[in-house]
């Protein structure tokens, strides 16, 4: 086993310089809840680990343009404890709080969940449904990307060598908006999603849906943003017929695999059920109920 260098830089630019300059495998260490397990199992043997938790912009939640700037290395627990953030984005917060035990939630980060690129990542469909933008720092400077363009397949993401996701911009919240995330697991806690569904919607003063985003987890090689499902809700009062049409669009878009956690047929059916239930919760939130 070769030597591994550990670095804890104080700025994103310094982290990028380290990662870009590495000759061998270089890994970003955020909460470590995926990376240290991969290292222990011998699946990854980094020459360099860059611990980014000393970088202030990656560790804070701040107000920006009426929305929130969420540091990529903010933990699930910290999101949950941030009263204004968790009130504005209860669905995203709940999605992050589904990840593992309280020990894990205190370490696991949304940026890590995204970049680790598990198709079953719980916070990712909620983040995509929220319409979040990722800010990326790399050797060529800063750029923004849609969150749905980051993960490309199991364990794979679109970041170039030396690039890191430093934060997410959650856009300003119009009045009468609500989000929700639900997942199916065969127990009550501590499991990996068989199907996940994140929904974010906005109503006008008359209760008509003016904007919606529907994103699924664990039913494809990466989180799936389903435009036909959103279209089924937009322009309606999100009544039972619209929700049923949305659920059918969700099931039609799934392209899952059979594995030990669920069959293809089961996932296709249950994705519609989870999406319908999540839509009902998001609708209640948009109407100002719970």
């Amino acid at each position, binding site marked *: 086993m070769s*030597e*591994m260098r*550990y670095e804890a830089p104080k700025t994103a630019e310094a982290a990028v310089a380290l990662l870009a300059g590495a000759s061998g495998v270089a890994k970003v260490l955020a909460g470590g809840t995926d990376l*240290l397990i991969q290292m222990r199992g011998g699946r990854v043997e980094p020459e360099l680990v860059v611990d980014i938790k000393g970088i202030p912009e990656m560790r804070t939640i701040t107000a920006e343009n009426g929305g929130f700037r969420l540091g990529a290395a903010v933990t699930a627990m910290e999101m949950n404890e941030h009263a204004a953030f968790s009130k504005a984005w209860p669905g995203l917060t709940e999605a992050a709080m589904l990840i593992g035990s*309280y*020990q894990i939630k205190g370490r696991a980060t949304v940026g890590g969940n995204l970049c680790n690129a598990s198709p079953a990542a719980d916070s990712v469909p909620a983040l995509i449904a929220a319409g979040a933008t990722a800010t990326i720092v790399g050797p060529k400077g800063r750029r923004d990307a849609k969150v749905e363009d980051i993960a490309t397949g199991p364990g794979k993401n679109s970041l170039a060598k030396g690039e890191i996701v430093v934060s997410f911009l959650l856009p300003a919240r119009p009045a009468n908006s609500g989000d929700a995330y639900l997942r199916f697991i065969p127990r009550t806690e501590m499991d990996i999603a068989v199907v996940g569904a994140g929904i974010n919607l906005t109503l006008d003063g008359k209760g008509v849906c003016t904007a919606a985003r529907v994103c699924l987890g664990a039913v494809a090689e990466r989180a799936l943003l389903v435009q036909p499902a959103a279209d089924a809700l937009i322009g309606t009062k999100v009544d039972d017929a619209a929700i049923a049409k949305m659920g059918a669009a969700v099931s039609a878009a799934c392209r899952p695999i059979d594995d030990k956690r669920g069959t293809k047929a089961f996932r296709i059916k249950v994705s519609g059920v989870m999406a319908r239930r999540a839509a009902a919760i998001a609708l209640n939130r948009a109407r100002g109920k719970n």
Partner: protein
Amino acid sequence: MAKQHVVTTINGNAVEFLCDTRQTLLEVLRDELHMTGAKEGCGTGDCGACTVNIDGRMTCSCLFLGAEAQGKNINTIEGMAMGDKLHVLQRKFLEHAALQCGICTPGMLMAAKTLLDNNPDPTEEQTRYWLAGNLCRCTGYNQIIDAVLDAAKELRGAKA
């Protein structure tokens, strides 16, 4: 092997150690500092037997590099009793027979203490969810939950 020099605080004491950069905090505690209270069950963050408290958060020390301990405030099971005087949680675990083989107990106690530090009056459901990351294969959990709730009650009474 690349060695990392780390200065940290463990149970209120300043501690310095050298560790390999790949070593987890659990390995540092057990193999370098000879603090064997934290146990390795799974080594992958599933069982909670290695739970310690770092800057107020309960953490699986198997998923935390020794190098990350720089400047942190760490509390382990070794710091729970005051000399020969057991912490209320430890005493309640004995009274309620909340352990048999004892492997999960240090992690269970650290997790329970973090719960009561943050919430002096947890419901049974909150307690069960809080301890969901700590596996016990002996007790069936009921005695553990009883012990934690009884300890919480006694601690509340002591403060009143």
